[in-house]
């Protein structure tokens, strides 16, 4: 519980004693490139295979002749938008970006770079962490949109080249009973997950004590705790927004 309290105080410190807007803008743009653009490749690879595998496995399980093959497209679409794109990508993202944020801040802590900022009268939490959180919350929804599009494309590729079902059936399924709220739901989740990943990783890294070994431990903890927080908040958001 004391850790949770410390985390809340840490979040409170983000908004105290700001530097200039220009400083934050520059730092946030740098972080957008580092966090967002540099994650495109891994997110793309994971998404295409995620969509392709979902298509093949759904088609494999759909053996009832009374259920049309187009249902595969519908299932893959909803699965991708509601769960795979925001949540599975978040777990991959926590592994890549979360560990990097925690490692970066942990190293800065043990090499006294954070103390150097504090001595200069700079709010180190705000200066170092706020741009990372803003950049993640801003960029992660775009990555989720990309992941969704590529996963559905991966499903099409599986239909076309693996022969799981005909591409025509797949497209028919994609267009059947589409509920636009699914997109909003995915984007709401992506904002929540982006915030959780960046803030938890930053918190773990910022309070690293010790040496190189502890920096590694902070990175591991950041990924573990972020994944648990993602899954927990995924359930809570689904319960709040989908259950009528």
């Amino acid at each position: 519980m004391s850790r949770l309290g410390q985390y809340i105080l840490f979040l409170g410190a983000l908004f105290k004693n700001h530097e200039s807007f220009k400083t934050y803008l520059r730092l946030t743009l740098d972080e957008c490139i580092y966090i967002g653009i540099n994650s495109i490749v891994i997110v793309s690879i994971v998404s295409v295979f995620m969509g392709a595998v979902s298509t093949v496995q759904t088609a494999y399980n759909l053996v009832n002749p009374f259920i049309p093959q187009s249902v595969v497209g519908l299932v893959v679409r909803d699965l991708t938008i509601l769960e795979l794109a925001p949540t599975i990508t978040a777990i991959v993202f926590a592994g890549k970006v979360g560990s990097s944020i925690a490692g970066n801040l942990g190293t800065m802590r043990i090499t006294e770079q954070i103390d150097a900022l504090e001595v200069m009268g700079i709010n180190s939490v705000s200066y170092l962490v706020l741009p990372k959180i803003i950049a993640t919350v801003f960029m992660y929804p775009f990555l989720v949109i990309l992941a969704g599009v590529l996963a559905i494309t991966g499903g099409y590729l599986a239909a076309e080249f693996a022969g799981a079902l005909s591409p025509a059936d797949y497209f028919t399924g994609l267009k059947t009973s589409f509920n636009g709220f699914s997109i909003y739901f995915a984007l709401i989740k992506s904002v929540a997950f982006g915030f959780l990943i960046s803030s938890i990783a930053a918190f773990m890294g910022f309070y690293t004590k010790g040496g190189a070994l502890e920096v590694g431990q902070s990175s591991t903890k950041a990924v573990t705790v972020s994944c648990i927080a993602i899954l927990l908040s995924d359930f809570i958001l689904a319960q709040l927004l989908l259950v009528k």
Partner: protein
Amino acid sequence: MIEVKNLTKSFGEKVILTDINAVFKPGQTNLVIGASGSGKSVLLKNIVGLFTPDSGEILYDGRDLITADRDMKTEIRREIGMLFQGGALFDSMNVEQNIKFPLDVLTKMPEDEKLDRVNEVLKRVKLENTNDRMPSEISGGMQKRVGIARAIVNKSQYLFCDEPNSGLDPRTSIKIDQLLHEITVEYQLTTVVVTHDMNSVMEIGEHIIFICDQQKLWQGTNEEIVHSGVEALEDFVFANKMMRKFKSL
């Protein structure tokens, strides 16, 4: 001038410093010495505001850092320059960016003026033409000098150094000590150096305080230190064979 009054600090049950009083005057190099684990770095971190003391006062030209409101604290801290044990240079920035950093964040100086100021301090620490080098590409001694340049670039009034000679060879250590002393006199800085290096004590110790068993046991100059009559200090000063031989002469 910095005044430390009745400063006490503990971590949980463990008392680190008890009732420390000290005055650090501008234009002279003030040294805080003591064995490893004696609490001298904790004292320094209390003085610069990285730790909050349990009780006592820390006055920067009459302004108490502990009771100051946030704006006053920020104002005081922006007059402080600090050289950390490992240099604490930002890994992602080159030498020029590291030194320019306080000017970028804390001032509204035009870019060309900032660059002039950076080159001026680089020249002062004898590191001209190293602007584009990364911290990982320069030696430990050079990193310390970049750290000093960063500490003084914003025309700080107070300079703190935590073990400035750690990891350096004796010759480079003396050069760093001399540089710190010259800068202190030239800019009339209030400089506080935490060290356990006897070479530094002998080279630049104009005002020394000795910390042992959580307390300030002695204060004086490098000329007085060899005749202090304080047993713990004599053990510290004459720790090696050569110094013991010197004492017996």
